[in-house]
């Protein structure tokens, strides 16, 4: 399900709108994932506090969303652009790639909450496709 020119322009335009709140969105999406899908906590067992709004969740949510913002910038070559991150997730973090879909869902929930007017069905499908393509690129080096 490759990204069409329209998908890319919709994603870029929407990311322009949300970039000011990206840190907040990332923090909240991560917090929602850890709360609604408790099995994902296994990857963060080294944090003292896994509750939504905690310092490590806020910080790391910002890191993740920043990386996703960078991916928008390399949307024409996600596999190439995310190669180093794929190595990291594959060989060091060893995150089961099934979890990328779970985080993507929570990002969509958070975007819908913070940008209800902008998060139209057309934006929903474009962002869903983008996150799926990003997830595939992130999983590229796994085996």
């Amino acid at each position, binding site marked *: 399900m490759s990204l069409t020119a329209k998908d890319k322009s919709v994603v870029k335009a929407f990311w322009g709108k949300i970039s000011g709140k990206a840190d907040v969105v990332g923090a*909240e999406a991560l*917090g*929602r994932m850890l*709360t*609604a*899908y*408790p099995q994902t906590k296994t990857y963060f067992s080294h944090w003292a506090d896994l509750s*939504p709004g905690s310092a490590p969740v806020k910080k790391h949510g910002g890191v993740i969303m920043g990386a996703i913002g960078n991916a928008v910038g390399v949307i024409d070559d996600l596999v190439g652009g995310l190669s180093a991150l794929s190595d990291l997730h594959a060989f060091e973090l060893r995150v089961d790639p099934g979890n990328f879909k779970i985080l993507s*869902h929570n990002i*969509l*929930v*958070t975007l*819908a*909450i913070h940008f*209800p007017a902008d*998060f139209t*069905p*057309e934006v*929903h*499908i474009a962002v*869903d496709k983008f996150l799926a393509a990003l997830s595939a690129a992130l999983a590229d080096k796994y085996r």
Partner: protein
Amino acid sequence: MVDWTDAEKSTISAVWGKVDINEVGPLALASVLVVYPWTQRYFGSFGDVSTAAAIMGNPKVAAHGKVVCGALDKAVKNMGNILATYKSLSETHANKLFVDPDNFRVLADVLTIVIAAKFGAAFTPEIQATWQKFMKVVVAAMGSRYF
């Protein structure tokens, strides 16, 4: 199937109590058809679903959205017994409608997103967690008669 705590039961009822089926049902089903276009295969008789605008404005889609959402009401009213409540609906979807059961999970996720958009920050992570647990049970019950 599931032993709900009192807190979970009241959270689920509270969320559902604030959902306007006539608004959320049509929006959720239309969104599924837009975001996952292959689901249109089940709605061949619904008329024009060629564009997002056509889908969002299609009266048959809207009417069916209300039917689907209305069926969720049964689960809310029979929380201790969702498996039995959905037995015949599951059989119908399996043996007559031939709906791929993965679509139940897709609809549940989209419905959650639509509800989140409506509720805003009031749809806290904890409320989302409980609501999604309820959705998971509903989805499992709908798939229960497929084999």
